[in-house]
């Protein structure tokens, strides 16, 4: 398979330079939907949904805590999938070369992986913060060396490392492939985090929703629907932020290449003037 080179970089860079925002009509519409959905979610979570018989009002944190980790899982799985695509598109037999990635698809998947991992880290941090607040109310302490808490922190640190690796200066192909391998190893931790409450004696409660066929629900009624709605809302918000991050990553790449192109053009002009 022959790699398709990016279209004229200078042209793209000029386009990028003329863009001061990452928004488009579609993302603005998505943004409005996301903000409205968050408003409705606040209404559902804070007023309409009843307090829990045991946990009282602290159960309302669940509407942020649980959907955030679901979205974070989704982000990490997407990172792994996009990374597999990067490795596939840049494999040696596909005409891969050293240096900059020429294949447009590979570059896109690399940006998807980066944006999805950032979202995963952001939403994992939100999960840890809300979980910690919930722990203070319920357990009387912000932190417990509980299996799920510990494995979630490890997941968080793993992907912080992944983002650190992505930021190291390197040729784009080497960086993308190296990060892709790490994403594929890191995703192994996901099932361990998820099933830690079943595998270890733990303070953390069992999963709120059992998605297996015939599985029991630990919550019902308004709480159940509010939780599902919150998950949908968080997914829309994540999608909105993710698209913007993807475009920021693309603009960064284009700006980087544009500055190189400009320097080269300047050098050529100087040489021409010197003759």
């Amino acid at each position: 398979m022959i790699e398709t080179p990016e279209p004229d970089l200078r042209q793209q860079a000029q386009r990028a330079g003329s863009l001061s925002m990452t928004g488009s009509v579609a993302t603005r519409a998505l943004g409005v939907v996301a903000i409205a959905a968050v408003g409705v979610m606040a209404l559902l979570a804070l007023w309409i949904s009843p307090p829990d018989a045991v946990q009282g009002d602290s159960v309302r944190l669940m509407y942020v805590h649980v959907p955030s980790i679901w979205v974070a899982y989704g982000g990490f799985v997407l990172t792994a999938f996009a990374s597999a695509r990067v490795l596939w598109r840049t494999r040696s037999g596909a005409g891969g070369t050293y240096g900059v990635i020429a294949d447009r698809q590979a570059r896109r998947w690399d940006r998807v992986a980066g944006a999805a991992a950032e979202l995963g880290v952001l939403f994992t941090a939100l999960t840890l913060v809300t979980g910690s607040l919930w722990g203070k109310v319920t357990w009387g302490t912000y932190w417990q060396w509980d299996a799920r808490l510990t494995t979630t922190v490890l997941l968080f640190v793993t992907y912080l490392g992944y983002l650190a690796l992505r930021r190291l200066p390197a040729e784009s192909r080497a960086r993308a492939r190296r990060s892709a391998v790490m994403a594929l190893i890191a995703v192994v931790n996901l099932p361990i985090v998820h099933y830690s409450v079943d595998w270890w004696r733990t303070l953390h409660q069992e999963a709120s929703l059992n998605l297996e066929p015939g599985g029991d629900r630990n919550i019902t009624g308004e709480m159940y629907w509010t939780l599902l709605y919150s998950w949908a809302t968080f997914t829309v918000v994540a999608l909105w932020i993710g698209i913007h991050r993807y475009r920021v990553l693309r603009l960064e790449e284009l700006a980087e290449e544009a500055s190189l192109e400009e320097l080269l053009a300047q050098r050529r002009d100087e040489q021409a003037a010197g003759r």
Partner: protein
Amino acid sequence: MWREIWLVCRKDLIIEWRARVTLIQIVPTVLLVLVVFAFALDANPSLLGEGAGGLFWVAVLFGAVLGAKRSFDIEAEGGNLDALRLGGLAPAAILWGKAAALALQLVLVGAFAAAGLLVLYSVTVHEWLLIVVAGLCGMAAFAICGTLYGAMTVGLRSADTLLPLLLIPVAAPVLLAGTRAFDVALGTSADQGWSWTALLAVVLVTYIAVGWAAAGPLLEDA
């Protein structure tokens, strides 16, 4: 392929035999970690005994980080990786050869650490077979993971600081499952020791699969 793997593994082991870095530096560091834990826990024998399984794996994980770093330091100098590839060796053979050599060195480190547990923490082993099988699975998993991350960070200016940050969290499944299996083998837990060993084996197989897929991408760009 097997012959190439053996060649790389033998090369690393010969270098280790001549330099004796594992024996002179990594093994003492791991034993030192066990001693320092005793300071940290105020040499409380009951606490040390209860946590012996976990402390063993933490100490060996530190050893694995050092071993992985060392394994690629010897290749970074003078562009040895390029030389190996120019010599016609397949990237997968280089990676698996290095992983095999690191695994053997970690088995040595683990043996010393286990002796350290017996002597320093006065633990009693109830299931030797479980210790051996879980230990070998864990060492192999650490070695593969360490080699992958060593290859990932080789030649980077911040490799020294980045490698532990990347390797320790990713190796956590091995640490957790290994600890549980050892707790059972040492009689400090009534859990299902072999189930945890099976989980270790699953993680090991996953790392092997990722290693096969990743060898080319990592070493072509290293």
